[in-house]
């Protein structure tokens, strides 16, 4: 089991050019807003929570395709579905490693972008926690969409149409937590909701992903 995790991390690390793209996208999108809206602090701090959350969501959607595409193309997905290890666990490992390499960097770079968008300092911890709880949910939900579309040659836009509606609750609670914190209000309620989403996602999404993978493999 440990060996499977290290292999997965090794694979993702050697495909790092694909992992850097969403990160750059996140930075670039956020830096467009001061240019397009206004560089004034009082204007930017109003939109900062929404901009950060929308940009993080779109960025984490951007790399979803790499989650299963390579494995499907070279036949490894077939061996995963065929193997004697439970597919639920294998998917949990896969999505977990993927989040570690693609979602966590987004979370870590977000304080810098928060500074750029004049997000109040007292909202920074809340933003970090909300992204830390929210991006795993995005990865979990996204993995279902990625697995469902992996057998389609041109799945790019369909993934977005499938998963964006599912991302909405996460964005609502995530950005409203940051808004509340920047106004000096308590944000624990929203963060607890995000935590609940995360628990539910980690428990249930790999089940759906595993079934979707079985379907994808049998369509080949």
């Amino acid at each position, binding site marked *: 089991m440990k060996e*499977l995790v290290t292999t997965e991390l090794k694979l993702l690390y*050697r495909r790092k050019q694909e992992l850097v793209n969403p990160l750059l996208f996140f930075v670039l999108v956020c830096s467009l807003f001061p240019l397009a809206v206004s560089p004034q602090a009082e204007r930017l701090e109003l939109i900062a929570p929404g901009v950060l959350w929308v940009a993080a969501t779109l960025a984490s959607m951007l790399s979803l395709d790499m989650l299963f595409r390579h494995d499907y193309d*070279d*036949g*490894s997905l077939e061996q995963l579905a065929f193997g004697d290890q439970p597919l639920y666990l294998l998917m949990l490992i896969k999505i977990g490693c993927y989040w570690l390499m693609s979602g966590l960097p987004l979370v870590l770079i977000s304080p810098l972008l928060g500074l750029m968008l004049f997000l109040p300092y007292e909202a920074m911890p809340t933003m970090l926690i909300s992204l830390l709880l929210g991006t795993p949910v995005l990865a979990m939900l996204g993995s279902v969409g990625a697995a469902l579309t992996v057998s389609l040659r041109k799945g790019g836009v369909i993934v977005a149409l499938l998963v964006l509606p599912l991302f909405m609750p996460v964005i609502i609670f995530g950005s409203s937590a940051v808004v509340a914190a920047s106004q000096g209000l308590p944000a624990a309620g929203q963060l607890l909701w995000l935590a609940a989403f995360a628990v539910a996602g980690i428990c249930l999404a790999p089940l759906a992903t595993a079934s979707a993978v079985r379907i994808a493999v049998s369509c080949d």
Partner: protein
Amino acid sequence: MSNTLLKLSDLTLERGDRLLFEQFSLRLHAGEIVQLGGANGAGKTSLMRSLVGLLFPQQATYSWQGHEVQSAHVYSDEVLYLGHKPAVRFQLTPLENLRWYANLQSTQVNSSTDEDLISALCALGLSGHEDEPCSQLSAGQKRRVGLARMAISRAKLWVLDEPFTAVDVHGVKILSQWIEKFAREGGTVLFTTHQKIEFDGQQPRVVDLDKPGSVESS
């Protein structure tokens, strides 16, 4: 022959709008080498994938070692399946690829120590390439990385879909020797190929999907 390892009966399989099999039966005995024949599109790959449980036929009855089982998943840890696609990651080295496989299919692998994995790779002429990324290997060498799984497997049934593609004459010779040795020790091999393969001793039984006569009835 007496010892039936796997019996598939009443197979009905549709792919898209085509009916590939209807009331089809196949019996595999222990210690037997079976070659699936048939033109492109005859359903060789679909039949193999239904046998190992990667494809869900509309109707089928499986019986493993005399016991009727519900699905192919029951016996999948006794089966080595090598598909069309080699399932070799280009970013990993041959040794890492084989180690990944040994950990994934831990119950049907003899041993996963590095020495054994390396000797499996060396047996297929990959010595000196163990730590090179697979993206730098040739197509035939990549295929060999996948085929090295045969050397560490202790499955009872090998299902090999076009294993000889892109492999040179010398490699084909080694593989056919492995297949023969495995069958002598009581294993069963089901394979497809469009090449002419010569076995020294036991000749494969040919099941031709184009000629219904060569397929025994249940």
